């Protein structure tokens, strides 16, 4: 016994021996007369302590305790009663008999003891559900406007909690909340504003009125100010044409309270379309924060400046001196943020010094900040290509340190960007990544690196040195990584000097226990064994480029119909390369079906298009009307093997008209002949509709680009915008819209060739055509490259779409697939001389398509 006492003393925890059953047994004290309030409230404390430690009470235990507690309401001790309220709130979720307290609590809530009332209101609302809420509604309304501010606050926040469960009931209390919002008490004002905003959330006009009114009358509570700033900022984000709101936020920068000033500053710097002039006062406030003795203030200031630096680096330059002072801040978070901000705003010369500083305490900061650092480095690499080697050094050091998946992924992403952008760092970077995968626990990162090695490694001066690293993975890793490693190995095998050694390695994997690994090894082994360059390029290096969902669909329909003819790969639409390269480092979102997939799905539902075969390519949407006209039309061109479907998306902006039988008539030109039309049923105001036109493609394959004039025909029925009644008699009308432009690009699908030279040789010069053009009106190489890509609609390879600065000649290489599945490769040599001189070499598997492309630019 004595020993126990001593132990307790050492720990200083009188509750450490308390457990559920002893605490609950003590509830029998509640039945004693006279009641000993001290002991009883101690029992409640024990129960709350246990609940706080995460202890779960069973329903029976909680219910029993509740019943015992009803006795305690006979005692007038204030602390005891409050502990009761607290216990009710803690345990109410664990029993469905909480309602037994309703009567006692209602009595307390309306009683004369002011110290009971606020607690009673909150406890009562915590055990109330929507059905019983009606019975206390009257009391709640009174409580909201009670002159006892604690009661009013309690009622307001309880109402706020109840909104989740009983929005419709609480909505009726808006008038009382409005009244409370003009209270003199700071907290009541804050809570009333919060509730009012919540109740009027769906009515932006009412909220705007509320904000304007309160901002004029002036608030007392800093918390209410911060809330009001947030509400105003939200309104501004939806519609930035509200100068009064912006002025209000700006005026808060001069508030006496730091919390309010900071809220206003961060609201301003987070606004989307903010000008330099508007942001300046907010930045200078944040700058002042950086010099504060309070860490929270410095942290807040530098964190916001860091965000500003991403969008408006020049606005932050003025703070550089203050930021320099924070580099050595004892709070590592502040120091890191200061350095990364400086990296964004500082000059090239300071980069190395800052990087050195930061690597001193990289191990002490959390992953969130490490990612911030990597992002800053990433941005620097884009800005100062000359610093690549320095950055590479730091990145590889970071890669060797400990860190979570997100952190490592950010580094790998950054390294990959450097490798693809700067040829001189390529080999070094690849070696760093090789070392990384030696000890990488994240499968997705390992496969990503291995695939990259497979693509880039064989192009290096001495590819054999990578093989050891990759083969180690085959021996040591899980099946996913092994499979990726086999594919990468095969790519090395396509280098003639290495073929034999890779064959030996693949032979070993042909007995792998995993099906996928074994299949890949066997397949690649047999392909490589033939030592046929053409086959290698087709099967290994450049791989399959069809769209996988489409392939699946085609195969299943093939199996249903005719299994006699062999399956033709060319009927499968090729995979469209995404036109905008996705921003790296953004969190990977759920994979959505590509735009082409959506169109294919949509079109396949319309029976008239069944006979046209599989969809080859869908163009971008092209607008055929001005933005402000009464009818809005745009067109999407869907190319099939022998036809083109024009999909017109129409919208009617007049609310007093309904258009029926709408179709768009196209005038046939250059062999493009309309075959049939599918009109819309009716086009009502506000709901867009679609109409289609099927066209034959020109017999003469060499004609490709054209421009088609068209006209919209429909029957107008007047209608009443209010009642929606439509006039039965209509009159026909016409409407002229812009011409539809058809270019070569509509017949070509973009395809990325990872190894262009191999494909170039594979296709051969059988159908090669060469043309020389003079593009006199184009002034720069970048401009020429951009125009050629959009015109031909082909995929630039090997990053040849980027013209190095200061060069006067450039080679652009493009690849694609022509309608019908014919491969097309283009090499275009550009020289800057009196405009741009271009020598275009086109190779392909089909003579007509080569001719079309070669003559396209004129």
């Amino acid at each position, binding site marked *: 016994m004595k020993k126990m006492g001593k132990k307790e003393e050492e720990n*200083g*925890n*009188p*509750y450490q021996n308390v457990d559920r059953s002893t605490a609950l047994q003590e509830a029998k004290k509640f039945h004693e007369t006279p009641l000993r309030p001290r002991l009883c*409230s*101690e029992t*409640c*404390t024990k129960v*709350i*302590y246990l609940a*706080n*430690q*995460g202890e779960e009470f069973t329903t029976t235990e909680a219910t029993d305790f509740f019943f015992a507690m009803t006795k305690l309401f006979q005692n007038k*001790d*204030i*602390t005891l009663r409050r*502990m009761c309220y*607290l216990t009710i*709130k803690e345990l109410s979720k664990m029993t469905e008999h909480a309602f037994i307290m309703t009567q006692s609590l209602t009595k307390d809530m309306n009683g004369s003891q002011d*110290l009971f009332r606020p607690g009673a209101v*909150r406890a009562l609302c915590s055990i109330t559900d929507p059905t019983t809420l009606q019975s206390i509604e009257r009391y709640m309304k009174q409580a909201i406007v009670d002159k006892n501010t604690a009661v009013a*606050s309690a009622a307001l*926040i309880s109402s*706020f*909690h109840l909104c989740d469960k009983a929005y419709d009931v609480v909505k009726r209390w808006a008038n009382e909340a409005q009244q409370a919002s003009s209270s003199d008490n700071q*907290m009541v004002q*804050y*809570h009333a504003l*919060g*509730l009012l*905003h*919540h109740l009027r959330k769906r009515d932006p006009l009412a909220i705007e009125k509320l904000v304007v009114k309160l901002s004029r009358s002036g608030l007392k509570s800093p*918390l209410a100010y*911060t*809330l009001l700033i*947030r*509400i105003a*900022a*939200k309104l501004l*984000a939806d519609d930035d044409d509200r100068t009064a709101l912006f002025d209000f936020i700006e005026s808060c920068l001069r508030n006496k309270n*730091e*919390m309010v000033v*900071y*809220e206003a500053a*961060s*609201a301003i710097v*987070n606004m989307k379309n903010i000008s330099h002039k508007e942001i300046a006062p907010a930045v200078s406030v944040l700058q002042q924060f950086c010099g504060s003795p*309070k*860490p*929270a203030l410095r*942290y*807040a200031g530098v*964190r916001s400046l860091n965000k500003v630096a991403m969008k408006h680096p020049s606005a932050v330059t003025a703070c550089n001196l203050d930021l320099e002072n924070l580099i050595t801040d*004892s*709070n*590592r*978070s502040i120091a890191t943020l200061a350095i990364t901000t400086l990296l964004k705003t500082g000059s090239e010369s300071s980069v190395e010094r800052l990087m050195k500083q930061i690597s001193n305490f990289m191990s002490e900061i*959390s992953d*969130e*900040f490490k990612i911030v650092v990597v992002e800053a480095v990433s941005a620097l690499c884009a800005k100062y290509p000359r610093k690549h080697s320095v950055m590479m050094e730091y990145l590889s050091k970071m890669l060797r340190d400990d860190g979570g998946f997100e952190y490592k992924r950010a580094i790998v992403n950054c390294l990959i960007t450097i490798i693809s952008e700067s040829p001189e760092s390529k080999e070094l970077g690849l070696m760093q990544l090789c070392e990384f995968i030696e000890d990488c626990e994240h499968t997705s990162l390992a496969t990503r690196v291995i695939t990259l090695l497979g693509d880039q490694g064989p192009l290096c001066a001495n590819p054999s040195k990578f093989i050891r690293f990759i083969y180690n993975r085959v021996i040591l890793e899980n099946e996913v990584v092994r499979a990726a490693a086999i594919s990468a190995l095969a790519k090395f095998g396509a280098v003639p000097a290495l073929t034999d050694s890779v064959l030996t390695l693949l032979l070993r994997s042909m007995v792998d226990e995993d099906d996928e690994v074994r299949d890949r090894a066997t397949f690649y082994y047999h392909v490589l064994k033939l030592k046929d360059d053409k086959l290698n390029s087709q099967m290994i290096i450049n791989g399959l480029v069809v769209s996988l969902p489409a392939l699946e669909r085609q195969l299943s329909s093939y199996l249903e119909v005719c299994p006699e003819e062999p399956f033709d790969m060319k009927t499968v639409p090729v995979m469209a390369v995404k036109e905008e390269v996705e921003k790296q480092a953004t969190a990977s979102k759920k994979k959505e079906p590509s735009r082409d997939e959506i169109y294919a799905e949509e079109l396949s539902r319309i029976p008239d298009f069944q006979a046209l075969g599989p969809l080859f390519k869908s163009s971008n949407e092209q607008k055929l009307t001005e933005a402000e006209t009464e009818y809005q039309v745009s067109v999407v061109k869907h190319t099939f093997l022998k036809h083109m479907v024009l999909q017109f998306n129409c919208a009617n902006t007049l609310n007093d008209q309904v258009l029926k039988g709408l179709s768009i008539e196209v005038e046939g030109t250059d062999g493009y002949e309309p075959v049939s039309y599918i009109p819309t049923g009716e086009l009502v105001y506000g709901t867009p509709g679609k109409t289609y036109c099927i066209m034959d493609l020109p017999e003469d394959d060499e004609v490709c680009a054209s421009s088609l004039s068209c006209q919209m025909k429909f029957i107008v029925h007047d209608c009443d915008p209010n009642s929606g009644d439509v006039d039965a008699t209509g009159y026909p009308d016409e409407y002229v819209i812009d011409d539809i432009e058809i270019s070569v690009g509509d017949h070509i699908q973009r395809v990325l060739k990872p190894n262009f030279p191999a494909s170039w040789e594979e296709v051969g010069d059988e159908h090669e055509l060469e043309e020389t053009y003079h593009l006199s009106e184009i002034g720069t190489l970048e401009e020429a490259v951009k125009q050629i890509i959009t015109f031909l609609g082909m995929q630039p390879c090997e990053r040849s779409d980027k013209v190095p600065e200061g060069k006067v000649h450039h080679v652009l290489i493009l690849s694609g697939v022509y309608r019908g599945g014919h491969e097309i490769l283009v090499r275009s040599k550009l020289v800057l001389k009196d405009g741009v001189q271009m020598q275009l070499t086109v190779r392909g598997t089909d003579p007509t398509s080569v001719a079309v492309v070669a003559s396209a630019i004129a």
Partner: protein
Amino acid sequence: MTVDPSLYTVGGVIILDNDGKRLLGKYFGDEFPTLKEQKPFEKKIFEKTRKRDDEIVLLDGQTICYKTNVDLLFYVIGSQDENELLLSAVLNCVYDSISLILRKNVEKRALYHHLENVFLAIDEIIDQGIIMEIDPNNVYNRLAIRSEDIPLSETNLSQFLERAKEEVKWSFFK
């Protein structure tokens, strides 16, 4: 990043001792619904904060304002988009209220002794994530602590005993 205007601002209040053991842990919102999520998080923040008194850190997407004193660590957490100064104001209110309750003697033993009033104080400051009060004096006054709860003589006596114990301990070391 714009914060949705709402009264729900605070993500949690935690008090740990110098072994990282929880004395009080209240979480609001759905970031840490059960002990399973709470315990590892507490362990993490404890590791991160016990050595350095930085007052503010960002961890697992949560802004954490904290304060250490003798053998106690006080934390207020909130979303990383939350106004850091607001969280820091709440932390100050929590700390100062407790300091008033414990008569400036903020340490583990005293806190256990007055656990009941500490629970009540936290409840007066935050209600399910909504700030109820940020003025420690208001909080303290609302508690209406029983006058006989902390008899002056009792504090003096316990302090005296404490000091005597220290003296004895030191005499042993000498």
